[in-house]
């Protein structure tokens, strides 16, 4: 089954609006891309869209009640909601160090959630 989808490419600030023709699991055509980056973006975004997710986790006895965290690598877009639920369950103890692993291999994605900054004790 052939379908057409519109995407905004975000590889560079231009933001070309691509029209992608897809047949089942293959890209037939990409229109309106100004460069090759658009082709790579379309491929990734259609079949395996990924995002970096940043949020915060609760900290016990820390200088602040929350410490910012993020996914070390982009994770599959459909899993964002469930990953956020997992992040919400976490509570760690201060002090926290930058890049400290706060949640390992979240939901079996192979990606760790790490701390964005140092956070000393209260």
């Amino acid at each position: 089954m052939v379908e057409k989808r519109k995407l905004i490419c975000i590889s560079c600030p231009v933001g070309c609006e691509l029209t992608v023709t897809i047949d089942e699991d293959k890209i037939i055509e990409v229109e309106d891309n100004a460069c090759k980056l658009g082709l790579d973006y379309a491929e990734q975004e259609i079949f395996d869209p990924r995002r970096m997710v940043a949020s915060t986790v609760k900290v016990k006895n820390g200088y602040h009640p929350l410490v910012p965290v993020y996914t070390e690598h982009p994770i599959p877009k459909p899993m964002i909601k469930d990953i956020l639920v997992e992040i919400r369950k976490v509570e760690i103890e201060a002090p926290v160090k930058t890049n400290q692993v706060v949640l390992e291999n979240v939901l079996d994605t192979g990606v760790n959630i790490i701390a964005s900054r140092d956070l000393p004790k209260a």
Partner: protein
Amino acid sequence: MSLKNTYDVVIIGSGPGGLAAAVEAKKEGAQDVLVIERDAELGGILLQCIHNGFGLEIFKEDLPGPSYAQRYIDESLTLGVETLLDTIVLEVTPGRKIFASSKQHGFVEIDARAIVLAMGCRERTRAMIQIPGMRPAGVYTAGTAQRFVNIEGYMPGKKYVILGSGDIGLIMARRLTFEGAKVERVLEILPYLSGLTRNYVQCLQDFDIPLMFEHTVKFIHGKDRVEAVEIAAVDKNWKFIPGTEEVIPCDTLLLSVGLIPENELSRQAGVELDPITGGPFVDESRQTNVPGIFAAGNVVHVYDLADWVTMAGYEAGKGAAKYAMALRASETAHIPIIAGKNVHHVVPQSINVRSLEEEEIELQLRVLKPIEDRTYVEVHDGENQIARRLMRYVRPGEMNTITLKPSHFADVEKASSITVDVYPR
């Protein structure tokens, strides 16, 4: 840490601009570098920008704001940058005196050989765009809401409408959604996006949050707390189009309607502001019209990426350090000439050792008491004689002189001070 009276470079603000300036000033060779930050921690606005997108240019990495800040915080502390936290600068004078105040350090007065202004921006407020309605709780600028959500750890409301498609508004739309809130609508008065396309895709499109161009808020309903906003479409002249009104029930209105460079201190210091940018006029080394006062970052004009702010900070830090070091050199270049035994006064009272050339320097003096006999007038450095002259007499009514010749200069340069004594042979 005990505060010094004078610093080579004082940097006001520890966001990306200020931290970069601090690091570069140290690397350029400035000895005493101080950062004054009004928040309790270094990092400025980066601390609440917990999303990725920082460092793509400088580090070739995709970092969240706090991580980006942490790199510079670590480096500045390693380099020996001093800091005053939870401290607000009250006044900067054109003579580069700084008055600041904090709970821990009390009321502080510091002299700076060079200053880098890195105070960033404030947000445009509801009053500045005159949105009608009462003044209920629940109207926030996006940055203030961001602070509550990410740092204080509280959600300001449940159901949100965001006015403005600038980056802060888009980022907050996603952030609030991540924490279980409902963002009903994002409105933009212009016919195009104010922020980065990347943010439109990843903050609004990803979460099906509707964006309406050429729309704005007509009225805020609610007396104690926001109850709804009435929105409407506008024409090219920003006049409301009748019949397009819609009331959206909500309890929070976030405003992302522009940033304004924060230049109150700059004005006080006599820094000339460009009416178009709202920030100081600066040259390529980021120096303002006031010698020794530099400016970098959002305080100069609004940037889109923190990486570019860092680059500007480097320039300002370098320029400030160079200025400060030149000033320091000229300060220690003057050695005092002291009126010694039986001398009332000597003029000149100091010599600038950096400008000693081939010309003689005549010292003029008056003696205290007359000596009606052969008398020496001697110049020495405390240990060794530099020059001496024999007079037949000396009287207070007659001025005496002694000349320092180029042959003496080698000794003069080495001295920390020189003294003129008058005594009988």
